[in-house]
């Protein structure tokens, strides 16, 4: 068989790419499509309608769950950003072996099965007599999210010369001012990326929310799960589409914010909080 010339299109690669994208996005596309179906069927699209969105808008319990999940995600994002950044800044200053051990321990939540974290949180909360509510969900989600923030912020800090903070001190900043005026602004891309990631993870997190939530209102993923047990409604598709929209809007908002900060940060670096060249 003659060797193919390099200029020819690598057909196999193109085919694999198309298949991969189909595998990734067809289910999502189906969810979006059937959320606009005018019949209850989940297999045949018969006509365009907004009836499921209409149903959704009048499902008081579901709306409450949506608000609850947005609250949980917002509070957990803020809480883990503050604690995770403080942890990252602290670890950056402890350069001993003890510091490396602590640094490794902070990564454990990333590899701990979520179900273990969930059960542990439940045992802790009931053990100390804390009533299960949205607060307990927020606390559990913060515990789980700190590691993500710390990893991303530490990555950015590693690329930031210690001389930058010293320069701020040299130019008249107290340690606190140096942090506020120089170090934190330098961390903005990492903080945005970490915040976005944590928000997305927490917003649709089921396992932790399931273990630590009270009765009412339930976080959205828990509500969706329990409603599915009574039969699948196309309204679930509408929720899924809305959640997709929220995620997409968040990413766009973060990109716009970064542009406003005047940084040429790519979307990849936004997620990884990576160092800019």
């Amino acid at each position, binding site marked *: 068989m003659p060797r193919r010339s390099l200029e020819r299109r690598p057909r196999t690669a193109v085919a694999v790419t198309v298949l991969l994208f189909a595998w990734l996005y067809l289910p999502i596309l189906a969810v979006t499509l059937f959320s606009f179906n005018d019949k209850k069927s989940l297999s045949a699209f018969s006509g365009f309608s907004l009836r499921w969105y209409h149903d959704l808008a009048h499902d008081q319990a579901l709306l409450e769950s949506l608000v609850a999940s947005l609250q949980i995600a917002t509070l957990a994002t803020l809480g883990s950003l503050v604690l995770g950044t403080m942890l990252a800044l602290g670890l950056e200053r402890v350069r001993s072996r003890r510091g490396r051990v602590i640094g490794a321990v902070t990564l454990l939540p990333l590899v701990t099965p979520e179900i273990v974290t969930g059960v542990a949180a439940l045992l802790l909360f009931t053990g100390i007599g804390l009533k299960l509510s949205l607060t307990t969900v927020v606390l559990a989600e913060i515990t789980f999210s700190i590691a993500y923030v710390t990893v991303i912020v530490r990555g950015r800090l590693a690329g930031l*010369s210690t*001389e*930058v903070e*010293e*320069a*701020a*001190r*040299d*130019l*008249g*900043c*107290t340690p606190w*001012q140096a942090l506020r005026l*120089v170090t934190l*602004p*330098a961390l*903005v891309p990492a903080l945005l990326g970490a915040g976005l990631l944590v928000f997305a993870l927490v917003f649709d997190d089921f396992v932790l929310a399931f273990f630590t939530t009270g009765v009412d209102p339930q976080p959205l993923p828990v509500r969706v799960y329990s409603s599915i047990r009574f039969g699948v409604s196309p309204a679930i598709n509408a929720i899924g589409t809305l959640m997709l929209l929220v995620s997409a809007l968040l990413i766009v908002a973060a990109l716009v914010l970064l542009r406003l*900060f*005047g940084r040429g940060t790519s979307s990849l670096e936004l997620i990884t909080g990576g160092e*800019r060249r």
Partner: protein
Amino acid sequence: MTATTTASKPLSRAGTPSVSLRGLTKVFGGTTVVDHLDLDVAGGEFFSLLGPSGCGKTTTLRMIAGFSDPTDGSVLVGGEDVTSTPPHKRDVNTVFQSYALFEHLDVRGNVGFGLRRKGLDRRTLDRRVSEMLELVELADKGREKPSRLSGGQRQRVALARALINEPKVLLLDEPLAALDLQLRHAMQAELKALQREVGITFLFVTHDQDEALSMSDRVAIMNNGVLEQCGTPEDVYERPTSVFAAGFIGTSNLMSGVWSHGSVVVAPSVAIPAPAHHGSAEGDTVSVAVRPEKIWLGDHTDEMFRLPGTIEATTYHGATTRYRVAIAPGLALTVLEQNLPRMRAEDRWDPGDRVEVGWLPEHTVVLT
């Protein structure tokens, strides 16, 4: 004659030194990095700390800036003891090796950073920043982000950001090391001119002897945390006082021998007459050094000390020719000769040629 005038210059400039170090010592985990350093830098002086990497020069600078606490001794800035003063309250500013610019601020934001901390009103601040940008020739770059500037421009922003605060002393930590050779030479001249213009004391840390010699009023040579020698560039080059100083700055023909009747016997057949050296007596072992460019292979005068020798090797270096001349078994001198216009290729000595080396007695330096 120039040596005496430059040597007395720092003393005539100001009463209290800009920086004084008294027994400054830093120990890192059992290793003494800076060892009882005593130093006075006069007001308006361009002073260089020169030494190989790891000699303690950067640690010394960090102790003056306040980023590192001395184990012992004290730091005085403008006559005031600042040993336990935090960096933001010291009247010193630093130009960092990495420049350490604030990437989230534009050039004006960087340059005005220090003055803003001092609470200057907006009008004065804007005017001072504009003047400073004018001085470093970056007037048109005020609104650029540092990431969009070239290496040389970033360097000037770092300089402007520190200078605008008019510190008692400006600390520069190898600020030219990151630039390529050509730009470095241009910046050396620029930096020197700038220092003359603003009249601020510069304490410059470098491992580049050429940089230190060409820019400084005085140079201090450091090695293993100890001050080896301190003086004008001419002093430290022409009259090194230690074997390390003679070897670190330029090249030297170093020979060790024994004092005998006003000469140093470096080989059974070679006794080099040397100026009297205090602290060394008849029979003591000492080192002598002669700079390669001080040795002549011809045109000798009567005052010169002369020796027969044999050319071992000839290396052509463009502007100069370098010879190895054997003067005794196992003892050879390096001789550097300018390739002057009147010299032609056939005038060069070839290996095996018998020659006579000669130099003036005052060019023999006795070292301890």
